[in-house]
């Protein structure tokens, strides 16, 4: 078998389908008034394969949402490369960008803020269709079908967003994103604003739609339990960088990067007997400012393994003997999920 090497150095056998979405060295900096820059995303690379769900996890301010928005060019990245089915997304002009957006859609976190309260539900869902040239009447019919697809009643198409519950609104957001029959959905914390009993229904729907419509998901979330449930592969971000990436088993059963380990060990489990026995890695201190990230490894200021080398040399995101890439000079497998 011949082996090709991609820009990350990770070997991929020839013959395996090209990833549907590739992101390389993505950088986004925001200028700060009075000088300086917030380094929101600092060289993020990952692939999304056809039909898979890639979970992108991390705490607030780690750059996961900025990454998603850069991929869709909802904000313009400072540098880097994004390719969708081989096409250079960052080089697209306005017209081509519109065609791209038909294939690459986003669902937002807050189903209250992301639906126009003055529009009837059918016109919210039909708007992308009309923008892309479908006659209003056909678009209205299609909106009814889309409502059915997300398990809402098509006869409610004339209602306004406030007449729906939070879970139903999130379904409307999903229906709108699916209107143009995209290949990839970017889901930015799609269930974080929902109550526990509602969340399960939306997660089940997303999983069912992925199978039925052959979608690929970039699933952004801070809830590691949800991400384990829904993802095939997981990328963990810290202060603008991917610090570990692998299959869900790699990340949850064999985490190698200390931050991933601390993050997993901090997630509470709804089982009192497990919680009592569990050993936790409790990190000291807070997230450093992304305007002035630590030198070398950005996690070193909170890491119990930190040595001199961590301050001087940035650890590359490479396989360090655990079978999946992690960015730590002292990467070592540790079982933290009970």
């Amino acid at each position, binding site marked *: 078998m011949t082996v090709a090497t991609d820009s990350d150095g990770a070997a991929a056998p020839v013959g395996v389908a090209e990833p549907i979405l590739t992101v390389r060295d993505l950088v986004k900096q925001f200028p700060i008034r009075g000088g300086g820059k917030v380094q929101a995303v600092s060289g993020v690379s990952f692939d999304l394969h056809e039909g898979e769900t890639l979970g992108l996890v991390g*705490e*607030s301010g780690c750059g996961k949402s900025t990454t998603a928005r850069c991929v869709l060019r909802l904000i313009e990245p400072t540098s880097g490369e994004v390719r969708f089915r081989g096409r250079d997304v960052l080089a697209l002009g306005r017209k081509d960008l519109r065609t791209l957006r038909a294939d690459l859609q986003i669902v937002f976190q807050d189903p209250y803020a992301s639906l126009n309260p003055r529009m009837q539900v059918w016109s919210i869902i039909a708007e992308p269709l009309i923008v892309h040239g479908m006659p209003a009447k056909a678009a209205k019919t299609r909106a009814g079908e889309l409502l059915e697809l997300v398990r809402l009643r098509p006869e409610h198409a004339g209602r306004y967003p406030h007449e729906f*519950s*939070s*879970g*139903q609104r999130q379904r409307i957001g999903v229906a709108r994103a699916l209107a143009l029959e995209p290949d990839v959905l970017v889901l930015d914390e799609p269930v974080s604003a929902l*109550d*526990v*009993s*509602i*969340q*399960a*229904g939306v*997660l*089940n729907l997303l*999983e*069912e739609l992925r199978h039925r419509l052959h979608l690929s998901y970039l699933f952004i979330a*801070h*809830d*590691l*339990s*949800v991400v*384990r*449930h*829904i993802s095939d592969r997981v990328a963990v971000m810290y202060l603008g960088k991917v610090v570990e990436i692998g299959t869900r088993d790699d990340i*949850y059963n064999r985490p190698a990067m200390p931050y991933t380990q*601390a*993050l*997993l*060990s*901090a*997630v*509470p*489990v*709804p*089982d*009192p*007997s*497990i*919680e*009592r026995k569990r050993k*936790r890695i*409790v*990190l*000291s201190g*807070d*997230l450093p400012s992304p305007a002035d990230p630590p030198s070398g490894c950005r996690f070193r200021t909170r890491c119990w393994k930190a040595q001199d080398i961590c301050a001087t040399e940035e650890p590359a995101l490479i396989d360090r003997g655990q079978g999946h890439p992690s960015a730590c000079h002292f990467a070592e497998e540790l079982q933290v*999920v*009970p």
Partner: protein
Amino acid sequence: MTAVLDISDLQVTFPTVEGPVSAVRGVDLTLDPGRVLGVVGESGSGKTVTMLATLGLLPASAEVTGSVKYKGRELLGVAPSELRKVRGSGIAMIFQDPRTSLNPVHTIGHQIVEGIRIHHPEVGRKDALKRAIDLLRLVGIPQADRRANDYPHQFSGGMCQRAMIAMAVANDPDVLVADEPTTALDVTIQAQILDLLRDIRKEKGVAIVLISHDLGVIAGVADEVAVMYAGRVVERGTVDDVYEQARHPYTRGLLASVPRLTDDNRGPLVSIGGGAPSLLHLPGGCAFHPRCSHERPNCRVDDPRLRRVGPVDAACHYAEEMGPVKADS
């Protein structure tokens, strides 16, 4: 052992343009000294309103009936000046968003000093500040003597919540009410704050009411748990009994519907159909019946009350028929 907090048949009704809304419909809760009571429920279940009513913090338009006893003393209907003596020194509260609970124009130290001197005017400013710094040290603020002079915006979210906890325990209360204290925080910071609550409880012997929507948070901190739905406690017991032998279909549904960090399964999650009912138009009988998979005709008319079933108290007509929880998930 006398309960440090004893809430019985608490009812709270708010007048609205569309008619009266019953946010709390007969809640009974007991908290023993030094224990941690977890209160779980989804948005609108009445968990926060219950505690606000307990502390007399609801707007005057709210109609509150029932009884709230703090160390045997009735709190409902007492004069505001009496209530002020209990708030802060007997029962203290911390809220979800530490940033909005702190005054942005005063230093952290000043705000803790103020809290101390309101209840102990005999303590001088200097001594109070010394005590405030000790408290900040106790809750793990590094360089507490220097950071006491900082303003809230100079603190991170986690540090603000630590400062709130310092302020809450400043007058050695018997009860600390923590309303979603970690919901606004990241998971690694949440772990720090939950650790701190466990330490404070051990060190100060304070009893805690921990309100949370997160079943994991409750599992790790609480001794007892009360599950609320539509303004009622529908199930209560020790955490172990409720998590392992819940008898109410809502509790069982909640436990089955959360994805677990420890669970490798990718199959569909068990979900509870429908949504929380409007408090304006509550369904007749059991408020949970429209979403319940065990619903039978009498559930639509007979309102079940909390009663002993096995090791727990559950408000369901068919609680006896429920098997072990694990079978549902």
